[in-house]
């Protein structure tokens, strides 16, 4: 006999945080651990531990990507891994004074898009050792690698090259088309 008219559901004593009763607004929490694979891009993250920045070059059309991608977006052929130079130039930059919640404690921080000699596309990274007013388009910068890897693209970051201070003449070009 399994029928029990006196059955009672278990209750939790955790309670619920309430922000407002009209309308009723309650706190709801969500967190999750992902089993995230870097798949065909794994080599990029492993190489950062060996102080190497890896890009991709198309085997067929030789287009050079400063980011990993195993197939060429120009012709669709397979690419191969190639080592990028550790010296580059600022293609563009910004300083973030606000950010996403996880990065708020790190503000202000600098973002740069880096151009490398012999490569057709750019690479996004953090730059330290310079403030907003110190950075300029064309500034020579150098890659540095963290000793303790977190297997994130932030295992590599950039610093200004020696002697890269802004020259007084480094003014903005006007209305060039």
């Amino acid at each position, binding site marked *: 006999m399994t029928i029990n008219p006196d059955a009672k559901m278990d209750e939790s004593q955790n309670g619920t945080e309430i922000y*407002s009763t009209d309308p009723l607004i309650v706190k709801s929490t969500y967190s999750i651990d992902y089993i995230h694979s870097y798949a065909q891009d794994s080599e990029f993250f492993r190489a950062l531990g060996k102080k190497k920045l890896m890009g991709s070059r198309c085997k067929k059309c030789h287009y050079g990507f400063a980011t990993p991608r195993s197939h060429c977006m120009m012709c669709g052929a397979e690419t191969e891994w190639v080592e990028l130079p550790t010296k580059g130039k600022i293609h563009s*930059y910004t300083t973030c*004074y606000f*950010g996403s*919640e*996880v990065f708020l404690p790190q503000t202000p921080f600098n973002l740069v898009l880096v151009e490398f000699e012999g490569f057709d596309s750019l690479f*996004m990274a953090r730059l330290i050792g310079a403030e907003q007013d110190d950075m300029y*388009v064309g500034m020579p910068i150098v890659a540095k690698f963290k000793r303790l890897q977190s297997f994130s693209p932030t295992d590599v970051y950039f610093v200004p090259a020696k002697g890269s201070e802004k020259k007084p003449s480094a003014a903005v*070009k006007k209305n*060039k088309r």
Partner: protein
Amino acid sequence: MKHKGRKVYMVSGGVTKFAKSTPDMDFRLRVKKAFDYALNDVGLTINDIDGSVASYFSDHFQRQLMSGIMVQDYLGLTPKPSKRVEGGGATGGLSFQTGYEEIASGRMDTCAVYGFESMSHVNTWKGNEFIALASDTNFDYPVGGFYTGYYAMMAVRHMHEFGTTVEQLAKVSIKNHENALNNPYAQSPMKLTVEDVRNSPMVSYPLTRLDVCAMSDGAAVAILASEEKAFEITKHPIEITGIGTGTDTMRLADRPFGKVPLLPNEKPSDYRDLKYPGIHSFRAGRSAAKEAYEAAGITDPLKELDAVELHDAYTSSEIQTYEDLGLCKYGEGGQFIEEGKSKLNGKVPVNFSGGLLACGHPVGATGIMQGVFMFWQLQKTIKKHFKSDKLQLNNPKRGLIHSHAGTGTYVTVSIMEVPK
């Protein structure tokens, strides 16, 4: 690309007032309000609607998957056909075009395109995190994780290439917030000066708080119809004469440095030394415009367009978009705003409604909101819906709406016209 389908018209629209937070209504009720407004405006009932398209961007904001079907069910549109369309910030524009395709293909005679977003369920910085998850989470998100930062780098490069100034950016903010003073649906109408914009807190250099749109709760609905149905429903339908969609790489770093795809009013000598798009321009915006102009037969956009509602999530994006749309040449966007060409009384009023900067940006609703405002503008019913005719243009015949996703990954352009 040739568009060979049936003619498509917009017959009605509705928008809720966009607001930072509206906890007394959920997304279903907000859409219902915009939907009823649209139905009542032309005397339709739910029985007149053949199917729908649901437009919303993120499942994260509400932690509710399949929000689309919940709206479909709340509106009483089940068991009719519907689908959800998603493409970041361009979700609204893509959904509007999906509605167009439902009619053009002959599948439906009437289609309700409804869009919504409820961004107030998390704080602003968590919201920024959710939006940044729409950048490459292996390579870009862990480094910066902030869309304003990505756009700021594009703006810096535009300033470097073309000499665009922060004062020119500020003028976009001033224009759009001022236009919104006469739009009762806008979230943040205000009168501003260049100093106000430059002195507001720096978010990501060179973009200040007033160069960036806000997060919002909101909903918008557009009802589209076939030619026969459209003229049965209203004396003044507006024809959608062309749609275009462009795409670009997810990672900003991967954008190529090639040649400008030219519009009919441009020649190769205009851009001899310009490496395109790099990160200074939105190639997807140019592709979308090119496709839509071909379909609508537009060869000189500045002359042939009477109004533009474009995706100004950032002031810099508006300037970049003038150029993508061919309202001026690449490099002249800064001058375009400087000379007042996009003002209400300028050559082509851009964002007469106040745009995203002043109306707000509840992502899935935004691109549809633009469609509704343009519909009312071309119908000359601004007074009826805004309770003021200050934003009604004199005799607008043809308008363009433009929707845009993260750093220009998806961009849509749709052309709307008063039928001849």
